[in-house]
């Protein structure tokens, strides 16, 4: 059985592409005269001044940083809470005692490959020592460089995550 096809006869005004193409080109030309919004990363980088437009969110959870006290020693007392809470089991901690009888970490290593950047370590830390950092440029030439030891964690300088907005702690 043959199928009857009904051919619609529409006016040229509706089927021509010329009008639509001109419309699109007009928009393109319009943008040529407007200010540029693309940042030329990595030649250009965000600074503290343009926070809000280009910078990473202050609650970003990136690679870790260990904070130090006034003498430059890490604030960590090796209490063992972060390896305990860590869902990825990426923190290795061996506690020891220094000459003054203070507890400190003999070994503190974070495997950033295993880390899932949940930020629990920062949240659980009673000494406010370990933090997740506002940092994302982590490229290395070898895999073993991704196990950060205590020295490296302490020498990081990037800012640390606030985890929650102090003005709106409940996230409302």
């Amino acid at each position: 059985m043959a199928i009857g096809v009904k051919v619609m006869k529409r006016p040229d005004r509706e089927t021509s592409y010329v009008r639509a193409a001109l419309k699109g080109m007009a928009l393109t030309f319009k943008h040529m005269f407007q200010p540029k919004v693309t940042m030329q990363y990595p030649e250009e980088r965000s600074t503290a001044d343009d926070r809000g437009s280009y910078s990473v969110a202050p609650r970003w959870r990136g690679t870790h940083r260990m904070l130090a006290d006034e003498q430059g020693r890490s604030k960590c007392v090796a209490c063992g809470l972060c390896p305990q809470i860590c869902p990825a089991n990426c923190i290795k901690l061996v506690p020891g005692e220094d000459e003054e009888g203070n507890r400190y970490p003999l070994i503190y290593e974070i495997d950033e490959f295993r880390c899932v950047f949940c930020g629990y370590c920062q949240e659980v830390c009673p000494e406010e020592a370990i933090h997740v950092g506002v940092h994302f440029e982590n490229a290395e030439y070898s895999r073993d460089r991704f196990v950060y030891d205590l020295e490296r964690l302490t020498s990081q300088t990037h800012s640390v995550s606030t985890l929650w907005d102090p003005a709106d702690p409940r996230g409302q």
Partner: protein
Amino acid sequence: MSDLVNVTIDGVAVAVPKGTTIIEAAKQAGVLVPHYCYHPSLPSPAVCRMCLVDVEKAPKLLPACVTTVAEGNVINVNNEKSKKARESVLEFLLINHPLDCPICDQAGECELQDYVFQEGRANTRYGDYAKRFNPVEDFGPDVLYVANRCILCTRCVRFMESVADEPVLNVSERGDRAFIGIDPDHLLTHPWSGNVVDLCPVGSLISKDFLHKARAWDLDKTASICPGCTQGCNTMIDTRDDIVVRLRPRANLEVNRHFICDTGRADYRWMNRGDRIEAPLVREGGKLIPTDWDHALARLAELTRGARSIVILASGRASTESLGFVRRLADHGTVTAAVKVPLGTEAPLAGVPNLALRKERAPNLDGARLAGYAATWAGALAAAPGADLVLVLDADIDDAEAATLARARSAVVIGTVDDDRIHCANLLLPTTNMAEENGTYVNRDGRVQRYYQAKAAPGMARPAWWIAAEAGHLATGASAPKTAAAAFATLSSSMPGLGGLTYADLGHTGRVVSPATTGAAR
């Protein structure tokens, strides 16, 4: 039944013997009365005021640790009045207690932490006051005193005074300046003084050996028996990542109450030794060649089947199961079997009858007697060169004994530690040490007690009862048990001394089977 008293504790009716304290009666009703100074093995001074409970018709709250129950008492441990009292006590304790849980070894098993978390105040009202500070003191070979954390429950003072009978501790100063003082001419050198660390409900008395080693929540706890001497104290083996990090006493009112001696407490490093035999080694062409269990067991079966006279040199640390099955391996010939018993000095604990670190430093001496290890060590050693086969079951062999062993016609060593002295053997079989297997020990009072596997065995090591039973199966066709429970059941059904017991009968505190053997040979 006039000597029973009916009381109601938190709505639970219980009948307890006359003279029972409220705290013990509450235990039977399934109610925990929070307490610090009370300890079932120590006299109660009622100083901590933590166990104050509301007894109906009593004008004031009563200390549960010293008040005995009376007929018809209605006691409320968890009503508003009692809780309020405990909250206040906890608030007072925290006035001077430092907030150093992150660096305190007791964190996670601290009674102050537990109770404050359960029913303490959410915040402090003493934030403006500086806490008193006292330096950390050295109390002895294994004990540190952190005065700041002390809540002055005086358990340590009472232990040294009434149980150890060496009163070197006291409460010095008064009021909020009070601390635990030690006699300036003494340290805690009493052989049982390490128990003050376990008795301390907070992290005030801490063990130097365990200091900073592991957090309480990292530890896996396994019920065990101290392998130190014939006393057979019940212990808990705490392991972290398969490494034994400390031994602690486990309550058994019939044997050691709540205590173990310092010798037993410190003697765990051998359990972690790394220099172990990890695969069966067979002598072929003058060299020891690693092999698999099938080959090694066939060799063992062949050696035992061909031997008419067999000498067994066993370690006193071997389990009853291992001793029994190794002994069975030699049943067809003449057997001279002995266990090695290292000797030490006896160190009794004055306050507990029949509790001491014994001279015979082998935990399973009576188990060996039951299993038929009748010869003396020297006698067995003298018989070794003339025997067809010498079987060494994990005994420590010194140089002179190694020379004797080398003169034996053939020697099989079922051992743990890889030592040059035993390399003269024809067959070296890796076995588990007592922390790596399930088994039983029979202590000096004939009490059969179970211990449990606390860590993984290295390499191909197997329990010695398994090795002996499998080889016996190959040699004689006797069925071989597959579990320690089955091994024990097989032995106890054939050894009259074990009285047909099974693991299920033993429970956690053991059963006395053969009081007749006690002391007879000593």
